[in-house]
């Protein structure tokens, strides 16, 4: 039944809607490099702490409603991160609040905590942090393209808000506004996904060749 479901073009693992998990976070969190860095911190924090809590208190988990607990717990840690960040950089916290709110949703949609049953604490933590890091690095890579071309600057988080450590008036003047908008983000993501599929295909062929040898 599960195999049939996963292979289904509409409901399966690779259906267009399933593959959209995390798109909102990728688009909104990559418009500025400083946002991407902040979201990376939140991803590591939420993924790591939620998995550690669920693993350590595994014996106290009920057999029903585990999804609900994971949703509440990741939301709590996400709010905790937002709170701490708002003490570090209150103005920037207002600007990055929405992408940060999407972190627990991405965590839940990925369903990582359901795959941790047979893993030890360190293995589970390693897997979850690795996944958070991959998503965070993807955000940062996109932001490294979108921010310089869309705003003409590069920023990092600072107590005074976004701190511009690279940029000029000329670059700002010639920046392409579309790139930092949601529509531009989706366009770039489309090209990135196409490139990813080509590379994935090559990698698959390389692995098959290695197995044959």
């Amino acid at each position, binding site marked *: 039944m599960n195999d049939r479901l996963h292979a289904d073009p509409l409901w399966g693992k690779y259906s267009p809607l399933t593959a959209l998990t995390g798109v909102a976070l990728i688009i909104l969190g990559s418009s500025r490099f400083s946002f991407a860095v902040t979201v990376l911190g939140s991803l590591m924090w939420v993924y790591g702490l939620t998995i550690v809590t669920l693993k350590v208190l595994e014996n106290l988990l009920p*057999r029903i*409603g585990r999804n609900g*607990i994971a949703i*509440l717990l990741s939301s709590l840690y996400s709010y905790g991160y937002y*709170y701490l960040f708002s003490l570090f950089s*209150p103005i920037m916290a*207002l600007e990055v609040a929405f992408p940060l709110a999407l972190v627990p949703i991405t965590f839940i949609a990925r369903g990582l905590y359901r795959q941790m049953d047979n893993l030890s604490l360190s293995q589970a933590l390693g897997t979850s942090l690795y996944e958070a890091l991959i998503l965070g690095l993807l955000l940062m890579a996109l932001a490294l393209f979108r921010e310089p071309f869309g705003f003409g600057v590069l920023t990092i988080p600072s107590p005074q808000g976004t701190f511009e450590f690279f940029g000029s008036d000329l670059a*700002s003047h010639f920046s392409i506004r579309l790139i930092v908008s949601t529509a531009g983000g989706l366009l770039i993501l489309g090209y990135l996904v196409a490139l990813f599929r080509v590379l994935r295909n090559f990698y698959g062929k390389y692995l098959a060749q290695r197995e044959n040898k």
Partner: protein
Amino acid sequence: MKEKTISDHSVKGRDVILLSSWILGILLLGLSIVFFGEGTKNYFLLRAVNSYFEEKNETLRLEKPLPKNDSTHRPSISGDFFSVGGSKDIALIDSLMVEGTSIAYAIILSPQGTLRRMIPLGSHSVVMDERVALQLKALFQQRIETETLERK
């Protein structure tokens, strides 16, 4: 057969108790962060906004946070309210979502609830503010003022 049923019931009961404890515990923790942390958060926000005003040679200064339930002339939207030093105006610190990114504003309201100024906070918000369509700003202004009137 009878024993099995009793055992099943006890396991279900244990699960329900555990689930309720988890939900209650998480909600209590969350609420305590919101309740006890609000003051510290507002203090840091006030300090950051005042330091930004100082940097930009703005004469305005936020004085103190206003409690959320004391809202004679305030709109019911999200954000934090502060009194403005040397005047009876109220400052609302909130963010507006435009083109997929949020813009932080200090919105200065008269005691009657009329919007006086919208000051973008931070370099990101200043850049984005220049890109916001005037119609959208007018809509935001209208929303704040309408909600203020409704509460009066």
